[in-house]
């Protein structure tokens, strides 16, 4: 399978390939001259009887020229060869955060069903009471059951109330690096929808605000769709008022983000709100109806339908609320990036570092980590049983329950160099041909 980062360039190449065709067809072409010593006696008036020769006579040359345009367009379009599905290893990541405690037995049953033939590792990630990350990697065949499963119970509620899901992704990357014989990793994350902290319309809104919010392409130095390799570099740039920046950076480190080690797409975190983020705030009544369906006014002025439901008492009447919230608090807002621009996440904070443990943050974290979220589903039911059902069936449109089919960007092989080499050879051949012309 071939993935294309910039399909528009592929189409541009296809259109450009029509140019040599048009030139071959339209350019006045003299017919091949044939020798005849007595040509001087020919009747010139027969010119009118000679049909115009418009069929592309240099067919091979035409095809090569068209191929050059197509290949060049394909090379610039960032084509990537994705290997066959047999080359994909699957990892199941289990959230052992405190929020999972009430549904842990259900999680066991769900996990048993999730593990399949392709599952290579099961990783349980949680936070200890002291806030440090706990991670346990289990082979699918060693999955504990019953009492043994109970020993893996979620961590107790401590000062760190949520698992930072970036840790899940880091574990995914670590585990993926140790998997042999696969060219990409798919991950299923087993976690719990926390309806009390989640706006059900957010997912739909995200897709509107970020046209590629699900399946987003990330900007890196090498272009779209690739994860930067090479030396580690800080990829998160903080744009925050003095005082807030230090607190936020500390929070990032607490989340496990190590700017000297982590790699990822360029993401601007705007802690604020700075002046330019005012548009991200809406009047609660006009943008986020408490019950039923309503319309949402997006930062770029578009009005989209969405479903809204808020906890009692929030937001207070007349309050300005951000488009994105988590945990009943303003959590994140996003400006709409154009194609090829970095994701920009604005955190409208009041100097308070939020706890980003909700699913929306999980999605953000996935994006930060260079993963691609192919599909997400949302559900209406808060019950654990419904939650697991949705998790397993991944029915579309019924709740922000699971983010599935997370594929690492290691998948695939860039074809740009190969295509550019082909285009270069064709261009060289054309150059030699032109120079050889009398």
């Amino acid at each position, binding site marked *: 399978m071939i993935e294309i980062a910039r399909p528009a360039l592929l189409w541009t190449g296809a259109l450009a390939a029509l140019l040599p065709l048009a030139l071959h067809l339209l350019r006045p072409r*003299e*017919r*091949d*001259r*044939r*020798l*005849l*010593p*007595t*040509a*001087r*006696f*020919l*009747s*010139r*008036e*027969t*010119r009118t*009887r*000679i049909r115009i020769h418009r069929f592309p006579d240099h067919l091979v040359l035409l095809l090569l020229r068209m191929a050059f345009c197509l290949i060049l367009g394909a090379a610039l379009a960032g084509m990537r060869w994705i290997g066959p599905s047999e080359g994909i290893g699957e990892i199941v990541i289990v959230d052992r955060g405190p929020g999972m405690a009430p549904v842990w037995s259900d999680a066991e049953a769900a996990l048993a069903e999730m593990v399949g033939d392709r599952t290579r590792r099961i990783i349980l990630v949680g936070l200890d009471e002291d806030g440090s990350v706990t991670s346990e990697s289990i082979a699918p065949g060693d999955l504990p059951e019953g009492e043994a499963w109970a020993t893996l119970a979620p961590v107790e509620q401590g000062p760190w109330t949520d698992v930072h899901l970036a840790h899940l992704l880091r574990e995914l990357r670590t585990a993926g690096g140790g998997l042999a014989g696969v060219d990409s990793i798919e991950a299923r994350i087993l976690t719990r929808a926390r309806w009390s902290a989640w706006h059900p319309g957010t997912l739909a809104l995200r897709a509107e605000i970020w046209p590629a919010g699900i399946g987003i392409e990330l900007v890196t130095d090498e272009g779209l769709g690739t994860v930067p390799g090479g030396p580690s570099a800080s990829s998160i740039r903080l744009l925050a008022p003095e005082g807030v920046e230090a607190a936020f950076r500390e929070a990032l480190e607490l989340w496990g983000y190590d700017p000297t080690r982590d790699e990822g797409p360029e993401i601007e975190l705007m802690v604020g709100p700075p002046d330019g983020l005012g548009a991200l705030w809406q009047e609660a009544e006009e943008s986020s109806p408490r019950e039923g369906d309503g319309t949402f006014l997006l930062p770029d002025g578009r009005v989209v339908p969405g479903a809204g439901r808020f906890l009692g008492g929030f937001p207070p009447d007349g309050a300005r609320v951000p488009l994105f919230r988590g945990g009943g608090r303003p959590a994140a807002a996003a400006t709409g990036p154009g194609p090829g621009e970095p994701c920009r996440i604005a955190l409208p904070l009041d100097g308070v570092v939020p706890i980003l443990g909700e699913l929306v943050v999980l999605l953000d974290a996935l994006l930060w980590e260079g993963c691609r979220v192919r599909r997400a589903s949302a559900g209406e039911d808060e019950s654990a049983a419904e939650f697991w059902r949705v998790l397993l069936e991944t029915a579309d449109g019924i709740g922000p329950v699971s983010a599935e089919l997370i594929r690492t960007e290691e998948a695939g092989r860039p074809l740009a160099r190969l295509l550019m080499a082909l285009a270069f050879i064709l261009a060289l051949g054309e150059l030699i041909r032109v120079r050889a012309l009398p």
Partner: protein
Amino acid sequence: MAAKFDLPPELLDGIEDLAWVGRQVARGLGPGVHRSTLVGLGEDFERHRPYQQGDDLRHLDWRLLARTDRLHVRRYRETTNVRTTFIVDGSPSMGFAGIEVQPQRGKGPLTKLRYAVLLVAVLGHLARDAGDLPGLVVSGGPDGTPLHIQPARPGREAWHALLHALHGLEVGEPAPLAPILTRVGGLPRGRVVILSDFLQDDQGEAFWTQAGHLRARGDDVTAIRILTPDELGQGSAADGLFADPEDPDRAIPGRPRGDRGYIERLEGYYRRVALELEDRGVLWWEACTTDPLLPLLRGWIRGEGRR
């Protein structure tokens, strides 16, 4: 030994009974088949002449004296050989074999030049059998000079040298024939055979003028025009863009086959060239590269028209 042109044995067998005799008296260097300007020293009886004082008594016809009691001497016809110089047009147009075929070396398509080479070899063979001294001049050298000169000399080696020259003959540069004729005019008189398509830039005027000069000084001049079926409008080629190999930048769209105007202009051109040459006493023969050689030669030598 260097490769030379070999005539097919069947062709040699076919021309065995042919004698290519000149149309006029000649003054050669040795015995041959041509009538000599010298009378009385040959072997063929011509006529009686009344005896005059001083005549050699060995030529007195004693039998006639016995019968008629008159003194007559026997006069004999002198036969001699001639220099036969073949002038082959070596201009690029002679490398033409047909519209759809490309000239090649060796056993490639039969170009006009190769057909001319065949004719030279056969006629040279006939001439040599008659005691003549065949020579060869090929036009197409730089600046109008001959591409090749093989002087008319007696002997087997000279003949083999001529055949060797024919074997490796290739077309040269565009060149008019008139300067070559002028050059041949500086040689001793004899028989001159010109093989060409006669597609001259000046419509042939300088050529026939020079040919007339040769004829006037007593040369027996024969012009053999060689064309291909495509040039005669008999080929299978359809319409196209055609260019003279000697002027390839000037292309003309046309259709040789079926173009009545083309045929009329072509025939008119050659009719005029032939008339001008014949008016000057030059023999005009025409050949097409598809013509079988043997009947063609028999027709020519026996004087059965132009072809």
